[in-house]
């Protein structure tokens, strides 16, 4: 008994924010330098009335053009920008997609590690016989939390939605998982306003605003990710040379190149492509997987290492077989 990824689709909002536009607002930031360093040329930004749920639903709709929606027996929705405080966005998604009512649906709140956790939950549910076809959906709109004058975050983050069907398979194509959590890093990537801890108060004329301590997040990443990859390879009883392709969370090119060099990985086996998307949080891994499959960078039988890491801190990794 096992589980496998059957289909992936993603959706990007229409509006595009280019480096050229950012350069006009912040002349001290060169568009070409930004592209060269962080590996991002443009990012998609959700419209004023477009939510994470909308992006996720659009991705799921594309997916359900190829799959009988009545097969879905569980919905997992990963987002940190839910439609409402309550009810659960996944319940709204069930209605929006016209899925059966005899199914389970829940949200889980994770960021850059979310897709790997979603695969783990789906695998656990399928392997224990709770369900057969899980619709794993991610949707994120960090742009709505980013202050107008916050050039660092505006240049990095983009909005997107993704949908994946994880289905029952005779052979287990989703390998062993390694997880990690360190809530001591919570303050380094956080949105504090309009939350229980702050009595649901918003500053006058204010909005919930994302704070990121970039240097601390970078420190966390370079300390945590190399051992994480070692652990997941060992846990799957593989050697590093058995891995055909590495898809790490596409945080930015600078961080990825640093990690690749630290771990002496073959850069041609590592996915670095957020040029047209930016860092789309929980969407980067499904986008990378879908693009890699379509572009022939990975093929049937390949072992692909996935690793997500970030806000929480939360991190997780697994090795899948395509």
């Amino acid at each position: 008994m096992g589980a496998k990824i059957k289909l992936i689709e993603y959706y990007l909002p229409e509006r595009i924010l280019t480096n050229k536009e950012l350069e006009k607002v912040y002349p001290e930031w060169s568009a070409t330098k930004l592209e060269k360093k962080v590996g991002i040329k443009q990012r998609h930004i959700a419209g004023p009335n477009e939510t994470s749920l909308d992006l996720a639903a659009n991705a799921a709709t594309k997916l359900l053009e190829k799959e009988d929606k009545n097969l879905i027996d569980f919905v997992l929705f990963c987002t940190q920008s839910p439609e409402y405080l309550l009810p659960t966005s996944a319940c709204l998604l069930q209605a929006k997609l016209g899925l059966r009512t005899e199914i389970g649906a829940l949200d889980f709140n994770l960021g850059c590690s979310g897709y790997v956790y979603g695969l783990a939950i789906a695998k656990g549910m399928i392997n224990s016989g709770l369900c057969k076809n899980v619709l794993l959906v991610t949707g994120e709109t960090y742009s709505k939390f980013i202050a107008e004058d916050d050039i660092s975050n505006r240049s990095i983050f983009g909005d997107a939605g993704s949908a994946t069907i994880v289905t029952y398979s005779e052979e287990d194509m989703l390998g062993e998982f390694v997880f990690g959590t360190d809530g001591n890093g919570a303050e380094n990537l956080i949105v504090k306003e309009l939350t229980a801890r702050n009595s649901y108060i918003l500053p006058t004329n204010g909005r919930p605003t994302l704070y990121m301590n970039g240097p601390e997040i970078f420190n966390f990443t370079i300390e945590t990710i190399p051992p994480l990859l070692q652990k997941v390879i060992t846990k799957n009883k593989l050697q590093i040379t058995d891995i055909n392709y590495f898809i790490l969370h596409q945080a930015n090119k600078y961080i990825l190149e640093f990690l690749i060099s630290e771990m002496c990985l073959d850069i041609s086996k590592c996915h670095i492509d957020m040029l047209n998307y930016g860092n789309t949080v929980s969407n980067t891994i499904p986008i990378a997987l879908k693009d890699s499959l379509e572009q022939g960078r990975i093929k049937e039988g390949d072992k692909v290492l996935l690793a997500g890491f970030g806000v929480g801190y939360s991190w997780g990794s697994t090795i899948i077989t395509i």
Partner: protein
Amino acid sequence: MNENFLTLFADALEKEPSDMSMDDEFRNYEEWNSLAVLAVIAMIKQNFNITIPRKDFDELKTVSDLFEYIQAHR
């Protein structure tokens, strides 16, 4: 050693070492921005294998402060 460090620091900032001195307050460099911070963190990790907690880093003012911190924590 000091000179080597100044060169490494200059490379990270894509600056000429001749335009810099160990007594400079590095946050005053026009090249100093959020990307430069990452470049300096990466340079320190790669060359000295240490990461500097943000609260310590914020206390360091000059290139020389940074150099001495690294010497003390290697």
